[in-house]
Structures are given as structure tokens and as C-alpha cells.
């Protein structure tokens, strides 16, 4: 099936936020961000900025008619700074002018005075000082205290991983204008139209029905537009309301990088205990999540870290604590994987360290501890349809792991300046929003009287192909030419109270809602066909644009049936509501059944390291992944490839640096590097594990957005193994990303 989105993208005819044709008298906003990471505001002089030609108005917290509160989960974040600033780049004012150029010029003339306070950027220090965003949480299973005694080996260590900038190619943006009856129309580049609507209503002090949010598509998001598209959208709405003019904001890349949060850096202490047969008996870790200056999505991200802290392993005694630490950095936020990658990095580091001390390959420990059916996760859910062992067996069957290991050992014995390294990375990722109440969606389906179909859901298209998957679901359900199906923009007036398009759940939730709506319509169409043919609706089937009766084609076409249904005054519109069954979670006990199902997979990553220069290539990524019954193998392959390389980037190249004053040193694409075409692995092969697929997944096609990201973690350990081969006297540490600098320093450490 052709992807109409992709065709339009290839000709440059798809409109993104900044491409929307502007209305006459449109004004442009530039945000003035705090130059201080922590301080009390003692003076704010807007006069020179106000005198700049073209400036219409400068907004601060004093201009807010409603509440200066944009916190999504907890109310600890303001739209504009109050008396204190808590991170560099924190919005203090919005300059609105007749051009972005003039607004920027004016913003430079704003003078702010602050009494400087000491910024804290280290989460461990923040914890020590009692700066927590929310109370800490612990997941427990078994009894680690007694289990340590039963272990033959107990290994302790530390594992840290860094932040990651989303670097969606389209920066944050929004365009708002006054509509009739005191309404505001907001075009927002957001994954969460309802969140934008809810927060805009709160800030503007209007009911939600006065705010309409529309999203056509996003130029990439990866979680970065789940919560953090909101402040930009709400600012345009505020200015549009108070000026009664259209107002647009498109963040410059620098402002976007400085003002918005990243993937959370985590610091962790771990302890792992094994018996002599390499079974992990006990695992405990304390993690320090660097949350930044406000909660944003940190509480939910912390929760997913807890859920994934044992990855694809069964460990009978576990105790995992996460402290969500408040620091003077931009509020860190959702990013593909949503806390799971950080949790998995810690358990993989613990296994790698244990393997190192026991002088065995980490694979031996990984393999000995894979989760099996009926094992219990530390959060109480019983594991069913566990496919990790099958994925590993298939990986070994197809790619011959032993052979790969021998080839690498042989290469390393023959080369001085080049070394290779290899690692195995299993994944187990739970599908559902961990907050049970968010697992629902609606779809609104119109069949027009000419037989074309318009579908609105809560899903936002951001490159993940959800529109194509929904169109496939509809075309399959009605058995019509996919060209008849159009997926509409995501709009809060057509589909209300939506959950964000996030947690890899977009296709599952919205697709299932679409199935419910579609099936209701099919019932009605069959009724009409039965009346037309004088038979029982149960004898009717819709197949390839035709009505079939008892398996035989009739002369009633799809178009004729639709037309007749319309003439008989039967509704051709339906709304479907879906809520994921079974799931629940009891936070007071930290136990429940939070996930509809899990996604499994295993990957082998091999690297080639240039030991003279400390630079490296990712040679091979070999994967066996559990797709279920993939609805669209092309889309799913793209998600695998994109996810893997983003994960490798996080582990090896992408480094967000702040100085001790909380100033970001990597606020441009010339200092923050993401993988380019030459960084992509030479070989990336992904095989599908043949499985039936779980019921709650859309047509048994498992969620795909986030899980592959975590294969990239293997790159860290593969690289580490290559370094060890060159420099056996180096004691491995676990401090991602492993950049060329860190690699070279470790190659020659102690030499």
C-alpha cells in the first residue's frame, strides 16, 4: 500500500507548523529566557525592548488571566518565571512583534537582574540536599537482604548515563489566532493536543471548549513534543487572546536546545549477586534521576525505569529505588524508551561488571537468566507468552553467535591497531501507558455518501507511520481501496480528551477504537444490504468493494451500498471508544498488571575500533525481534532501524554538556552531534520471530516505536569489549556515552 504521506513529503508539499500559510496581521513571538540558572529576580527592564520598532507587546507572568501553571502531572511549573528562575533558558517574557527578526532584536534588549543562587546540576548532590521532585519509590520482590548470603559472588558498582537531545528536525512551534465566540484556534506541533488544550484553558481562564487544537503532522518528536510543545503553544494562545491577532512562535534551534528538556541522565549504584551457575539471585540498585527544575513527565519516567530495571531477566530478589532529583537544568522529559533505557543500562552494566570479574563473557550470564513463562516481574505481573528465549535461540540459529565470537577473537589476535568487540543486548519492553487511566482512545469515522471515508482519531502522525497503519486497518476492515481512506488531522473538536501519542501505543489504542467504530458501521451497512437483497444480514460480507451474499458476489458495489444506506437515513458516522482491558496497578503496593503485553527481542552488535585514533564504526547489528503479526513490515523495519541508530547515538556520540553554572555547552548542531549516514552500521539485519501476536495489539501487530531503541545499548558494551582487547589493564567503568574522547583515554589508561 502506497504511503500518501511519504509521497507528499518527497515533493515538499506536506505542510508542517511553520509552513501553514499565515493570516494577514500575523505577529511573531520570541521568548526571552533566563540567563541565570538559579537566582531571585530583582529587576526586569523591558523599556528598551518595548521601544524597538515593530514590537507590539511584551508578556510576562503579570499578563496571565488564569493560572501561571503548566505542570502536566504536578503543578510545579510556570509558563513565565515568577520571582525566581530555576534554569538557564527558563521563559521570563515573550516579545511579540511584526516579524521574528524584530522580536529577536527586542528580546536581546531585555535586561534582567538577579541575586544569584548556587545552581545544582548533580542529581546525587540534589538528593543529599533534599531536592526531590516527588517522593522516591522502590519496587521490591523477594528479599535481597537475605539473598546476598546465598550468593557465591556479589559485585558492586556504579553506572551513569547521559542526557540526549531529541533533535527532532522541526523545532517546537505553534500558531494561534482568535476564532468566533471568544475561542482560540491553536495549531501546535504537539504529541498531546489535549494537554495543550487543557493547559491553555487553565492559563487563559477559559473553558476547554473555547480552545481548539489542531495537529497536521510533526517533523519528528520522539517524546520531545509530549509535554514540551505545551509552553510554546500556550504562549501563542495567550498572545492571540490578549492582542486579538494571529501569533506564531517557531523556536530557533538554539532556543529549542537551551529551553527544552532532554532524556534524563541517571546515576546509579548497583549490587548484583550470582550463584556459581551464573544465576542472578539478587539485584539492588539506587538510581538518581536528574529531573531538571520541574517535574514535567519525570514521575512517569521514573515509574517506567522501575518497571524495566531487570530488563529481560528473572531475578527472584530485587530492590530498586529511584530518586527523582530536582536540579537547575531544563525540565527533562519523555524520550523514546521513557526511562526504560536508563534502567536497562544499569542492569546490563551490572551483568557486564560481574562477567568481567568472573572472567566470562557477559552473554553467559545474560543467557542463564532470561525470563520464562510464569515468572513474576518485580511489579507483580506474571509473565506470559515470553519470547526472549525464542528470540535468542533464533538469533543464534540464524547468525551463529559462537562463530561470530571466534571471528572476533581471531581478528583481535591478528591485529594491533584495530580491534573488534561484540555484545548481546536482549530487550523486554512493556506496552501500555504505565498510568492505567491513560490507556483509552476514540475514533470518529465518517463514510461520505460518495463512498470515501474520513477518519479522525487521537493519534498524531510524527513519522512513525500511524496514519498509514490506521488507513490499512480501515481499508482492511471495510475491504475497500485504500485510496478511499483519508486520515484527518488530529483535532480536539473531532476527538476529545485524548491521551498523548506516546508510549508506543498510538496504533494499538487508536487502531482498536477505529475497529470498534468500523465494526458498528459494518453492522449497519450489512443490515441495509440484507434489506436490499431480502436476506439475513448474517449472510452478507463486504469484500473488495463489493457486497457478497453467502460467499457469492452480488452487483451491489461499495459505492451503491453507501449511497443506499444514506438514502435510507441510516447513519454513516460512528464513534468508537477503546480502553485497554485487564490492566491495573496499585501504587500503594507497587504491584499489579500494568502492561497489556511485552515486546521482546535480542540483538548482537559488533564494532571495529581504530586503536590509534580512538574512533570506531558500528559494523553489524543483527536482530531477532518479536513483532507479533506485523501489520506493516516496512514501517516496522523503519522503526527498528531508526530506533537502533538513535540508541547507538545515545550510547556513543551524543553528549549534552553543561558547565557548573548550568550553561549548556552543546546548544547547537555544531557541538551536539547525532549520527549521520556514515555512522549507520554497515550491516543491520533484522529477522522477525514467527509468533501469533497478542490480542490487545492492533490486529496482533505489536507496538514498535520504543523497544528497538534499547538495542543500541549493546554498542556501549561492544565498544568496551574492543577497548579491553587492546588494553587489558584497564578496569572497565560504566559511564555513557562512550565518545571518541572517552574511548581514547581508556585505550591508553595505565599504558
Amino acid at each position, binding site marked *: 500500500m502506497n504511503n500518501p504521506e*511519504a509521497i507528499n513529503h518527497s515533493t515538499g508539499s506536506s505542510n508542517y507548523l511553520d509552513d501553514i500559510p499565515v493570516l494577514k496581521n500575523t505577529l511573531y513571538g520570541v521568548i526571552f529566557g533566563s540567563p541565570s540558572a538559579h537566582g531571585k529576580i530583582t529587576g526586569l527592564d523591558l523599556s528598551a525592548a518595548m521601544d524597538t520598532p515593530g514590537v507590539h507587546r511584551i508578556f510576562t507572568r503579570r499578563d496571565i488571566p488564569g493560572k501561571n501553571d503548566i505542570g502536566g502531572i504536578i503543578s510545579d511549573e510556570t509558563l513565565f518565571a515568577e520571582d525566581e528562575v530555576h534554569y538557564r533558558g527558563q521563559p521570563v517574557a515573550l516579545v511579540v512583534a511584526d516579524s521574528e527578526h524584530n522580536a529577536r532584536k527586542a528580546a536581546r534588549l531585555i535586561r534582567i537582574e538577579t541575586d544569584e543562587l548556587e545552581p545544582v546540576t548533580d542529581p546525587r548532590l540534589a538528593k543529599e540536599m533534599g531536592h526531590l521532585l516527588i517522593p522516591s519509590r522502590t519496587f521490591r520482590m523477594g528479599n535481597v537482604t537475605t539473598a546476598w548470603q546465598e550468593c557465591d559472588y556479589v559485585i558492586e558498582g556504579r553506572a551513569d548515563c547521559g542526557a540526549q537531545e531529541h533533535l527532532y528536525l522541526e523545532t517546537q512551534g505553534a500558531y494561534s489566532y482568535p476564532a468566533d465566540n471568544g475561542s482560540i484556534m491553536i495549531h501546535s506541533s504537539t504529541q498531546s493536543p489535549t494537554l495543550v488544550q487543557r493547559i491553555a484553558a487553565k492559563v487563559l481562564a477559559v473553558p476547554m471548549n473555547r480552545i481548539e487544537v489542531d495537529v497536521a503532522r510533526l517533523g519528528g518528536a520522539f517524546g520531545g513534543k509530549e509535554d514540551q510543545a505545551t509552553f510554546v503553544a500556550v504562549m501563542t494562545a495567550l498572545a492571540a487572546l490578549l492582542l486579538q491577532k494571529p501569533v506564531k512562535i517557531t523556536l530557533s534551534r538554539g532556543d529549542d536546545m537551551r529551553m527544552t528538556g532532554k532524556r534524563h541522565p541517571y546515576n546509579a549504584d548497583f549490587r548484583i549477586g550470582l550463584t556459581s551457575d551464573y544465576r542472578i539471585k539478587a539485584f539492588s540498585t539506587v538510581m538518581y534521576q536528574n529531573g531538571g527544575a520541574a517535574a514535567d513527565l519525570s514521575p512517569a519516567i521514573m515509574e517506567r525505569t522501575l518497571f524495566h530495571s531487570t530488563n529481560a531477566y528473572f531475578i527472584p530478589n530485587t530492590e530498586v529505588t529511584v530518586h527523582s532529583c530536582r536540579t537547575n537544568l531544563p525540565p527533562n522529559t519523555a524520550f523514546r524508551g521513557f526511562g526504560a533505557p536508563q534502567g536497562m543500562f544499569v542492569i546490563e552494566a551490572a551483568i557486564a561488571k560481574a562477567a568481567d570479574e568472573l572472567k566470562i563473557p557477559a552473554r553467559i550470564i545474560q543467557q542463564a537468566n532470561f525470563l520464562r513463562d510464569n515468572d513474576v516481574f518485580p511489579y507483580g505481573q506474571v509473565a506470559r507468552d515470553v519470547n526472549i528465549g525464542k528470540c535468542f535461540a533464533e538469533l543464534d540459529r540464524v547468525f551463529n553467535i559462537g562463530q561470530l565470537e571466534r571471528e572476533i577473537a581471531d581478528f583481535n589476535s591478528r591485529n594491533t591497531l584495530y580491534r573488534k568487540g561484540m555484545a548481546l543486548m536482549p530487550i523486554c519492553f512493556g506496552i501500555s501507558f504505565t498510568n492505567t487511566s491513560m490507556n483509552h482512545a476514540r475514533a470518529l469515522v465518517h463514510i461520505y455518501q460518495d463512498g470515501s471515508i474520513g477518519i479522525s482519531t487521537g493519534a498524531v502522525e510524527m513519522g512513525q507511520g500511524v496514519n498509514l497503519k490506521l488507513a490499512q486497518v480501515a481499508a482492511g476492515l471495510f475491504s475497500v481501496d485504500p485510496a478511499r481512506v483519508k486520515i484527518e488531522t488530529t483535532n480536539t473538536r473531532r476527538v476529545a480528551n485524548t491521551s498523548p501519542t506516546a508510549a508506543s501505543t498510538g496504533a494499538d489504542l487508536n487502531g482498536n477504537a477505529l475497529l470498534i467504530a468500523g465494526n458498528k458501521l459494518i453492522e449497519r451497512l450489512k443490515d441495509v444490504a440484507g434489506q436490499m437483497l431480502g436476506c439475513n444480514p448474517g449472510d452478507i460480507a463486504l469484500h473488495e468493494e463489493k457486497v457478497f451474499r453467502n460467499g457469492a458476489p452480488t452487483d451491489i458495489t461499495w459505492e451503491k451500498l453507501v449511497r443506499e444506506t444514506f438514502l435510507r437515513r441510516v447513519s454513516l458516522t460512528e464513534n468508537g471508544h477503546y480502553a485497554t482491558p485487564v490492566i491495573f496497578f496499585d501504587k500503594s503496593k507497587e504491584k499489579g498488571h500494568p502492561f497489556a503485553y511485552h515486546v521482546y527481542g535480542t540483538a548482537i552488535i559488533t564494532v571495529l575500533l581504530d586503536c590509534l585514533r580512538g574512533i570506531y564504526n558500528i559494523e553489524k547489528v543483527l536482530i531477532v525481534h518479536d513483532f507479533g503479526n506485523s501489520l506493516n513490515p516496512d514501517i516496522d523495519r523503519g522503526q527498528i532501524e531508526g530506533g537502533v541508530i538513535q540508541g547507538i547515538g545515545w550510547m556513543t556520540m551524543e553528549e549534552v554538556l553543561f558547565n557548573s553554572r548550568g550553561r549548556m555547552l552543546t546548544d547547537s548542531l555544531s557541538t551536539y552531534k547525532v549520527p549521520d*549516514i556514515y555512522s549507520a552500521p554497515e550491516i543491520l539485519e533484522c529477522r522477525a520471530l514467527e509468533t501469533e501476536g497478542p490480542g490487545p495489539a492492533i490486529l496482533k501487530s505489536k507496538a514498535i516505536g520504543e523497544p528497538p531503541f534499547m538495542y543500541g545499548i549493546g554498542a556501549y558494551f561492544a565498544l568496551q569489549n574492543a577497548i579491553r582487547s587492546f588494553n587489558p589493564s584497564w578496569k572497565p567503568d560504566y559511564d555513557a556515552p562512550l565518545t571518541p574522547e572517552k574511548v581514547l583515554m581508556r585505550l*591508553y589508561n595505565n599504558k
Partner: protein
Amino acid sequence: MVTFILNNELISTGKPTGSSLLDFIRYDMGLTGTKTGCREGDCGACTVLAGSLTGSTVVYRSTLSCLMPLGNAHGKHIVTIEGINTGHLSHIQHAMVDNGAIQCGFCTPGIVMSLVAESASARTTTAESAIAATAGNICRCTGYKSIRRAADAIADAMREKDTADPVRWLVENKQLPEYFLTIPERLASIPGLTETEDSGIMIAGGTDLMVRNADELAESDIVTLYDRKELKGIRVEGGRCIIGASVTISEAGESETLKKYIPEISSYIRLIASEPVRNMATIAGNIVNASPIGDITIILLALNAEVTTGGSRDSRTLPLRELFLGYKKLDLAAEEYIRCISFTYQPEPALFSFEKVSRRTHLDIASVNSAMHVVMNGDLIAGCHLSAGGVSPVPLYLEKTGAFLTGRPVSAEIVLQAYEVMQQEISPISDARGSAEYKRLLLRQLILAHFLKLFPEKINLSTVQL
């Protein structure tokens, strides 16, 4: 007035010549297929084609519209994604769609334009050249494997390309709209740009100043140096190679003259920026930018180059290494510019090596870079010019290290001793490109890499104690 052809339309505009072509395309002309990604030449989302009339044909090169001052568009054919559409998908667009090389689509127009530039070039299009053409395009969604598959398909579709007249071949095969064939004649009728020396700040390729001074330039007229005939060309005169100031990095990489002297020049050039940036950035621009880490400057320092000034003052010629007075401080007056760069030349391979390590191998600024040029007399080093970037406030000519090596035989021991001299000469600082400690170690490694490359048989690795 700046006059050029934008797609199929003759445009004359009085907008400031220092304002960006990107803003003009998107916000004045409403052609929103060209995207804004970073405004610093690091993402490629704004890639367009710039066609220059060369004889009776138009030579198209990929160009970053965010970095191109409007003045540099004068007399050219600027092509955006809207200007290549024919009503059906081209092979390039098909290859992108069919191979799943498009996800969010925001980077797609830039990638398509990079590939169109490759297809319109006078070289054979291979999968490798197609990939190289897109190396300046960042895609955050696909992981590039699908773009590589698209490159294979494109190479296949371009197998029959007539490299003698690629644009005509593309038009005849319905890969470009027919109006392309009318462009040479239409460009020929555009008169030159009238500007005076004092009408503003001098800009050549714009790849640095358009990033640093974007807001100021958006309101300013500039003096364009990029297309001045007297600043172009690479020639050999009296045993010296003379490179015009406005020769682009791409032109240098393609120069047969330079290839004779430094056969690996094109592979070195590939480590510098990206194809569209190399099409815009000039040799002199890299020098006057005065970055302590300019790649071209480091290469020229090791060639012991001299610079000759132009401008309203008397022309001077001075060694390149004497041009740098301090961090971003040059011995160059406001009314002076660099006219040309020259160095001793012979039409046979020199013992020359360039090394660069950055966080990302391509399209990145070096953590440390270094070049070495050695002349041997029998077994002894008769002359050694060694340079290094990223280890001092200026692009550094390692005079003492070079002097130490001169007169000595090549051996691992000598290289080890040279390290000691080198460490005294450099003064790296810790910054976003690495710690001082790393840069010291890295330069040591790169000097060893020079010797391993040039004298593989003379360096015994076991004595170097890696």
C-alpha cells in the same frame, strides 16, 4: 537589485544582500518545501540547488540556503524542491518513497535536493556518490539504512546518465521539468551585480558569517567576493601553486593540479564539512575565520603557504603562519582581504598527511587535526612542516617539533622524542570538543598516524609502546 532565476521565475529583489536565501524562499516567496532545521549548515534541511552559468551550460551544486547571502544568488539559477517537480515522482523521489527512506518527512526535501544535485553533476552517479551527496543531511527518524537502499536504486536509475550533458539527459528522461533547458540563455541575459567596495561587510561563501552575524546581516548589504573572477582558479606559476581566495573547498578537492601534489586530497576533503558546505565555503574564508581548528588552514600551514592580500591598501605577501596573532585575531586590516594563497609545488606526489579526529567522523569540527609535509634527503628528514589545530589559541605551526625532526632519520624513537617537543609547544584548553588532556594524547596519536602512513616500514609499533 539582486536578480536571479528561482525555479522557473525571474526574480529581482531589493532586499538586503546579506539576508539569507532561505528566508527569501520561504517567507517572501512562500515556497515552504525548503525547511529550516538549524540555520548553521549542520542539518541540510534547507538544501537547494545553485546553478552557475559556465560557458553555455549551467553547473548545479547543492547549496545551503540558510548560509547563502541573497547577494550570492545573483545571476544564478536557484532551484527548490518545488522547482524539480514534474507532476509525477522522479526516480529519486520514487526511490525514497519505495525504500521507506521517509518517515517524518522534514528532512526529505533537503535529501531529495542533495540527490538531484548529484544526478545533475557531470560525474557518474554511484550508490557511493549518492550517499556522499547526502552526507550533510541529518535524518533523525530512519537511521539512514533505507536512505542507503534508496541510493542503490538511484544509482541503478542513473546508470545511463549522459555525464557530458546531465541536465539535458534528466529533462529528456522526465526527471527534471523542461524549463531547465531554457535556463542557460536566460541566465546569460542577467547583468552583473553593481556594488561598491564600501557598500558593506565583505563576504565570500558566507558559511561562517551567516551563522555568527545572521541578524545583523539580515538588515545589511554586503560586498560579495564569492563569484569574483579574479579570486577564482588554481594555477601553477614559477614552481608555486596559486589558489584564488574564492576557490571553494569542493573545487580544491576536484583540482587535478592539487591531486598531482597530494593524491589523497579528495579523501581529506571529505573529512571537511559536507558537500553543500564545501560547495560554498572558500579557502580564504577558512583562513580569515581564524578558527584555531580550521581544516584547510591546517593543511596550508603544513604546506608552508603564503597569503597575498588585496583591497584598498598596498598588496602584501606574508607566510600564513604569521597571519595569526592570537585567538581569532589576524594581521589583516579592515580594508584588506586575502587575494590568493600560494605554496611551493611540484607535479608529483609529496610526502604529505592530514589527520582529523572529531566526535563524528563526517560533518564535524575537529577535536584535533594535524598535517605534516616531509621532504627526505636519503634516510634523513630534510624538511618537516607540521601543523595542528585545536591545541592552541591559533591554528598552530609546530615550528620546534618540525625543527627537531629535521636532519634526523625516521624511526619510532625519533617520533617518541618529537612528542616531548610537541607537548611543550601546545597549550590546549578543555571545551566542548574535548579535555586538554585528551587533545594532548590525541595529537600524539595523530603525529604517529602521519608517520605510520608515510613511513610504514620504518616505524616498529612494538617500540612505540601503544
